[in-house]
């Protein structure tokens, strides 16, 4: 049911039998729905891979395609059309979910380029990834404070000084995250507009920035957990 077809190979439309390039959701000749096309998430929206996206245009296209593809439009169609409507809409939704979110979009593009990126949809195991060198000392200190706070909580004590210190740390990490995001955006532009050399350098930097970002957001999450949001 989820046959992935090599996107370069022309295929014949199931309905009108006229061949078309397999990167299309609808037959260009008879307009009938087609099985899920090959190609990446960007191609679903008819755009080239890039990192700075016009989100309102993306949403507009998402709605336009949803109106045509959604299973609600095929409730009384042929069985194969129903199946493809389901598979195509899943593809459209997966693509939109990935591309509308800046981090997921970056991770996705890096993966397309063959980089090793962990999804960042965090399971707890992953957090022990290497601490960025400039944060090592602070992280050590923070972990001690978190531990203290947990045992204080367990015995029902409140340590206001400790709480204040953790709240302060959280604010600091938020600032760090914003800085990472700004650096990422700079690399987006470098990648979107650069030549191959610039792209490859931007790619490396983005992988490192994503690692750093994931590390810091895990810290924020731990602090939030201890402070009770």
């Amino acid at each position, binding site marked *: 049911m989820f046959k992935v077809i090599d996107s370069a190979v022309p295929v014949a439309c199931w309905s009108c039998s006229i061949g078309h390039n397999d990167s299309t959701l609808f037959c260009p000749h008879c307009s009938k729905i087609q099985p899920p096309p090959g190609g990446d998430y960007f191609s679903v929206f008819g755009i080239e891979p890039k990192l700075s996206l016009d989100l309102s245009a993306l949403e507009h296209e998402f*709605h336009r395609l949803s109106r045509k593809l*959604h299973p609600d439009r095929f*409730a009384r169609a042929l069985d194969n059309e129903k199946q493809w409507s*389901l598979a195509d809409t*899943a*593809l459209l939704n*997966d693509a939109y*979910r990935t591309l509308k979110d800046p981090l997921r979009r970056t991770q996705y593009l890096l993966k397309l380029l063959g980089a090793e990126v962990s999804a960042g*949809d965090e399971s707890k195991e992953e957090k022990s990834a290497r601490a960025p060198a400039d944060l090592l000392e602070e992280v050590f200190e923070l972990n001690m404070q978190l531990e203290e706070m947990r045992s204080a909580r367990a015995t029902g004590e409140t340590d206001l000084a400790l709480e204040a210190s953790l709240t302060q740390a959280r604010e600091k990490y938020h600032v760090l995250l914003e800085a990472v995001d700004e650096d990422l955006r700079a690399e987006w532009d470098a990648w979107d507009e650069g030549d191959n050399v610039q792209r490859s350098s931007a790619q490396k930097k983005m992988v490192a920035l994503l690692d750093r970002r994931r590390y810091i957001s895990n810290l924020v999450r731990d602090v939030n957990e201890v402070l009770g949001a």
Partner: protein
Amino acid sequence: MKDQMAEGRVVGIDLGTTNSLVATMEGDTPMVIPGVDGLNLVPSVVALDPVPANGGRPTVTVGNSARKALIETPERVIYSVKRLMGRSLEEIQEELKLFPFRLAGDSEAGEVPRIQLGELRFTPPEISAYILRQLKRNAERFFSAPVTQAVITVPAYFNDAQRQATKDAGRMAGLEVLRLVNEPTAAALAYGLDRAKAGTIAVYDLGGGTFDISILKLRDGIFEVQSTNGDTHLGGDDIDNLLLAIALNEIHAEHGIDLRQHPGAVQAVRKAAIEAKILLSTESTAHFDIELPNGDRYQREIPRAGFEMLIEPVLKRTVGPCKQAITDAGLTPEQIDEVVLVGGSTRIPAVRQLVDELFHLAARGKRPHTELNPDEVVALGAAVQANILAGSSKSTEEMLLLDVTPLSLGIEALGGTVARIIQRNSTIPASATEHFTTGVDGQTNVAIHVVQGERELAADCRSLARFDLKGIPPMSAGLPRIEVKFLIDADGILHVSALEQRSGMAAQIEVKPTYGLTDEQVESMILDSFDNAEADFAKRLLIEARNEAETILAAVERAPSSPAWNRLTSDEKTAIKLASDYLNKAKTTEDAAAIHEGTLILDHATRRFAELMMEAAVSTALRGKTMNTAGEELAETVTAPHAMAPAEFK
């Protein structure tokens, strides 16, 4: 019959914990289809009738007529069955403490629990199927044509198993379920129909047994759900149980009578508790005044302030899900333009107060939307969605609903942790692809455990399915590359397919629901197969109409021997006489519609008589007679008009 009916109509059904409804679009407006008793709400109560004299299988009664049996023969009645849908034996232990559900003695862990009703056993989907079939018949009577396709609503926070169980129930009732729609989303559709506006709305849905919160963005006819959250075991039932517990405890303490030993009496007190709750939405006090078996009276005043303190912990449980939903949508309360209230429990002033605080409404000069009847709005929305699917109407042509999955989908990884593959609040249909390999040379099977939920450990999540990837070609460990595709469809139900990529072999996989019915089991539970046969349809309508007429006429004939008869005014008696004369004449014709109409008229004329009978029945049941003798008396005396609804399933 008109041509447009050839394709059949798609109806919208709200299969509720307390009440169920069926609705349709009349032109551009959704409307609820009333039952034979003229009422829109069909109580979600199912009763097994007494064993017939010839020893055959007893028939089943649904709705208002089944309600009366709650007091008369509580061991043959079930209500709130929605709480059991798609749940395992272990999961329902809590429910059993609060509800008089009687599990079949031989129920085993791992199989779908069965309820003992009298001498028969039913799974929760079968019970729901009886309710659905009553609604189907109400719709068929209304259209004078068969109805075979439906949209059914479910709580947004229902998991995969609960959704599958609902779909199974539809199939057993002879309905093709074209779509399961989330209740809050349906409500938004009902509200959004005549207002093509843009904005962000929150739907707060506190029903009889479930709570949902959904946040939607409206734009150009597209209803895009941003986030949803909820609690599938939180609702008006919980409030009733608090009041019930107080009454039962006080009766025990003050009068030394433990009513818990008398299921019929408990139901009578529950009825009083529900009435008090409803009264407290408009009055500042309500009273319990219940006659006890020893002739004493249990009397108690319930001030609204006390009631609100009592239920505060229940209402507070809706706060967490609301906040989470707002956060998940990436919004603040101020960014929510409108709030829609759904579900009977939102009539409680304390609930409205809480909603106002949660969304800062009054502070922004806003009020929640309550224009549509909160009991009906979900069914009306289901009818709108039915119309969208039928694709037959201009008014819904531009509308499209994009819903989300309420719970994250994950796979159990090493150490019992969960690897999430589809995050909650992902727009559905949604899919994810995962790759698996073998750990041992020559291994041909890989076991996969799919779970649903937000917790870190698989053991804390809901187990959806365990399945084996079978038929993997024997290779060295780690070499096979099995691609497994998980797809959540537009109903929120999971499908799995797999492919071994090195050999290109589609691995044969068996997705076995951890709990739930197999296809064969569902097939064997289909209520009756001839139900959809169009040829028999007109005949069946006529037979049904005549049966209805006979039942009510027989009841009316016996009525004068009842003490309640003397309490009727002479005008009321005359009205009953005229109506029964009319019906007697009508039933000799071949005109099902005329017979049905005559039944309705007589039913209406005898309504007050039935109420008087019910009153008598309740106090009889409480006067300390054994349930059996009370039941026998009731069987002789209480017949009209609740008994007249033609709800038997042969």
